[in-house]
Structures are given as structure tokens and as C-alpha cells.
């Protein structure tokens, strides 16, 4: 029995499609965005809750790193669950668009055209799922921070307020992103 470890291009694309793994580029994008959005609440707590930025800097750094990890986790999971929905929605449009572009190329075989269409579907689904995941999680994160720090936790000291509001908001998003729907 021969062990065929070489996957066809189609199988590779399908595996990529169903895999939770993200590319290095996507990882960098996710962690970069997560770091920026996790750092924004520092402004609120410094200027409005009047936390001293110098003495509280170790807490700011630690909480920002924890929130960065939680947000990146949420981005990845949300992207994964959105990708299939986007792929189904865009399938017809991407196929039509690619057929128009490739119709003039008579030298290309049908198999190659199908592979390109599959690759393009994956790319578009990946792109839209990534961008929407980032937008959706960022919006929810900032909204949760404002509600938590100015309403729910307003009676707490500013330091505890910061630690709890940022960590719990990130944690809640990470938890919600693991949902199956």
C-alpha cells in the first residue's frame, strides 16, 4: 500500500478552508489590531478616570497583553465561523466574475480554471471574514469597555475598574467567539 502524502491542490484548498490555522500574515494582522484596540482604553482611564499613567504603567502593560491575546483569539474564531457563510454567499458571484476574466484565456484547461475559481472563492471568503471579524470584535470590545467602566464597575477603584473591565470584555468576546453559530 503506497502512502500518498501529497495532497492535490483542491485538497489543500479544502483543508485550508476547514482549518482553524491562520497564516503568518493573518496572525500578524490579528495581533497588531488586537494590540491597538486593547491599548485604546488606557486613554479613557488616564484622562477620565484619572489614573496616574506612570505608577499604573505595569498594570496597563499586563492587562493590554492579556487583552491582546484574548482579542486575537476572538478574531480567529469569529473569522473561522464567518468564512463558510461568506463562501456560500459569494460563491456564485466569484464564479461569475472569474469566468468572465478567464473566458478569454483559451489555453487554460477546465481543471485549471476550476482550481483558480476555488482558490479565488477561498481568498474572498478569507478576506471578508477577516475584515468583518476585526470590525465586529473591535466594535463590541469598545462598547463593552464603556458600559463596564462607566456603569457596571463605576463604584470600584479606577485600577480595579480598568483591570476588570478590559479583561472581562476581552474574555467575554473570546468566549462568545467559540459559539457554534
Amino acid at each position: 500500500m503506497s502512502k500518498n502524502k501529497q495532497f492535490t491542490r483542491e485538497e489543500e484548498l479544502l483543508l485550508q478552508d476547514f482549518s482553524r490555522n491562520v497564516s503568518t500574515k493573518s496572525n500578524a494582522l490579528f495581533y497588531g489590531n488586537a494590540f491597538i484596540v486593547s491599548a485604546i482604553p488606557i486613554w479613557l482611564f488616564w484622562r477620565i478616570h484619572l489614573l496616574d499613567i506612570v505608577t499604573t504603567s505595569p498594570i496597563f502593560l499586563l492587562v493590554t497583553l492579556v487583552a491582546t491575546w484574548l482579542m486575537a483569539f476572538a478574531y480567529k474564531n469569529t473569522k473561522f465561523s464567518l468564512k463558510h457563510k461568506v463562501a456560500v454567499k459569494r460563491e456564485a458571484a466569484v464564479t461569475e466574475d472569474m469566468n468572465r476574466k478567464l473566458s478569454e484565456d483559451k489555453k487554460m484547461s477546465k481543471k485549471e480554471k476550476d482550481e483558480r475559481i476555488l482558490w479565488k472563492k477561498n481568498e474572498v471568503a478569507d478576506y471578508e471574514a477577516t475584515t468583518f471579524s476585526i470590525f465586529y470584535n473591535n466594535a463590541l470590545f469598545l462598547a463593552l469597555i464603556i458600559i463596564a467602566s462607566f456603569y457596571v464597575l463605576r463604584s470600584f477603584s479606577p485600577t480595579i475598574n480598568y483591570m476588570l473591565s478590559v479583561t472581562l470584555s476581552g474574555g467575554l468576546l473570546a468566549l462568545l467567539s467559540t459559539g457554534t453559530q
Partner: protein
Amino acid sequence: MKKKALLLFGVLVLCLADSVAPLTAAGTAELDNEARILVQKKLLQKKRQGYAVESMDTFIKYSLFNIGGITATNVVLKDPSIVHAFEVVAGDVDVTLGRIAPQGNASHVIIIRPIKYGYVHNFTSAVVTYSSGENTQEVHTMHSDEPDDMYITSLKEFERKFSPHFVDWAAFAVMSVPPLLIPFMLWHSSKAKYEAVFIPKKGK
């Protein structure tokens, strides 16, 4: 009979009036012969929600009313308790007001600033000394009312509660726009592009 009864009733009323009148006139007669000062001590800071705030100016107004019938002379107002907890920015806590005419009034305002914060300050009464009329050595003393106790808060705590922070919120809004708008626009442009694929182009 009727006339006799009416006459008797009239005499009775006159007798009663004669006895009651001295009683009611006694109080006012006493005041007619002397000066009497009433003092009110009041904190003026309506807009600050009833807080005394560290390093923020607070006004204290002393209002003196002479309800007596003669001039109050050598009127001296003292409030030594203020200086222990506050810095006097303007005015004096030991001031000679001179004379207050009968049924007249005078007022004195000082501006103070809390030195310490984080505790409830108990405002004690101010003391006014005066003499009743001219050429008299007798000194009368009157204490003012005491304003309500007041919590002296730090400036940080006060601003955290009451400052609108318009500029800070505007800066937060500006900082929040890129992480929201950029991903949304990227997603929307791709969505719009592929939704337009099935829309027939005009002119073809």
C-alpha cells in the same frame, strides 16, 4: 338689665386689655432700649453640588442684622476656626464692622480654599461682639448659626465625578475610528464589488 350687662362687659374688656398690653409690649420694649445682633453664616457654592473641593475657592458669607432699637457699636466679627482647615484667599476672619444702625444689616464675605481633603469638616459658629449704643463698656456676644457639615473632596475625585471631559471624549472618538472604520470599509468594498457582479451594466 341689658344695659348693665353691656356696661359690665365693657369694663371687664378694658381691665383685661390693661393687663395684657404690658405683657406683649414687654418684649418689644426691651429691644427698643438695646441693640441686638443676629448673625447668619452661610457657605455659597450652589454650582458645585454641595462639595467643598481641594484647591477650589469657596465663599462664606456672614450676614448681621440689628433687630434692636439702638445702634450697635464696636461690632467685631471673628471666625478663628476657619484658619485651621482652610487657607483664607481673600477677606479677613477677624474684622471690625463698626456700627450697625437699628433695624439695619451688614454683611461680610471671605473666600477660602481647603488645605486638606478626604474628611467631613464640621463648620463651627462665628462670634460677634458688640456694644449697645454709645459710651457703654458692656460687651455683648452673639454666635452665628453653624452651616451643615461638608465633605471636602480631592480635586481628582471631583473631576472624576463631575467634569464633562469633552476634549478627552473627542480624542477617544478619534482614536476609535481607525480600528472600526478601516476594517468595515475593506469588508464593505469587497461585499459591494461582488454584489455588483450580477447587476447589469448600463449602456450595454
